[in-house]
């Protein structure tokens, strides 16, 4: 399956979707000019991945900032993983947040409330 690697910029996150090496990561800042088209390849990739997922799927979020429009798309991504989990696959979300950033920690808690999928909060300094 195709690997997606997108370099992060000042307004778009770094994205790695690599099924072969089992690395799924979204990190950095997210305030793209057009959120829907920016995240479209991610959603498409996840749809394809769901047809033949790895034994275990771990998605790492390590965002330092995202705007409200991105928050909606992040939920769409999490819901894709929820579907995978509902089908009986082993799925884990790791939500990394700067240890002094309560808002980012709370954002993780909120997503964990909304989607029914194993969710781990990880503080980093």
């Amino acid at each position, binding site marked *: 399956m195709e690997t997606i690697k997108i370099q992060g910029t000042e307004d778009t996150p770094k994205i790695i979707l690599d099924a072969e090496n089992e690395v799924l990561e979204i990190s950095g800042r997210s305030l793209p000019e057009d959120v829907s088209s920016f995240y479209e390849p991610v959603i498409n990739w996840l749809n394809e991945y769901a047809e033949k997922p790895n034994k275990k799927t771990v998605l790492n979020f390590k965002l330092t*900032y995202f*705007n*409200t*429009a991105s928050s*909606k798309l992040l939920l769409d991504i999490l819901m894709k993983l929820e579907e995978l989990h509902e089908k009986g696959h082993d799925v884990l979300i790791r939500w990394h947040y700067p240890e002094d*950033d309560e808002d980012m920690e709370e954002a993780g808690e*909120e997503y964990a409330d*909304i989607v029914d999928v194993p969710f781990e909060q990880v503080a980093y300094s």
Partner: protein
Amino acid sequence: MNNKKDVKGFLEFVYEFYKSMKAHEITLVYEGEITHQITKAFTSLTESNMSKDDEPNSVQRKVFHVMVECLQNISKHADDFTSNDYLFSGRGIFLVSKGENEYSVTTGNAVENDKIEYLTELLENINKMDKEELKELYKKQMKEGRLSEKGGAGLGFIDIKRKTGKELEYHFLPISDDTSFFLLTSTISRSESEL
């Protein structure tokens, strides 16, 4: 400005303008079309100023959040015009001021009068909500809301109130029979304990 007298008058105006900016502690002012490039430029400028001033991280993050949402509100909504008045489409005024105790971010843009009731209700509703209610509303809107054509998620005002913990102050001033100027100001405390 063809003759010397006009030039002098204009330059005096510029000085008055400068003085009143200083008096109101305005650090950034812009009038015009708000694009994504402008949003990026203003946020990075304000960020570097705040970090030069050793502003706490939490304050910097909140100011950044509020600026982005305010700028995007204008870029996504200010052109919802049926009247094709070029003066108004996608344009607005944007100000950042830095006082001793707080930052404020103010936007102004023209709106059609028939949007006033909707905006007032929306803002009043958000203003009277407490932390828990705002959190539930945000979650609900994120789940059930849909992105508009321009990529608005309807979450901006809720997010601003949540991040600042302060009411959104707003005002409408009449422009014409059909349009008004919508002013909105959000304040962010510079003291970490208040955040």
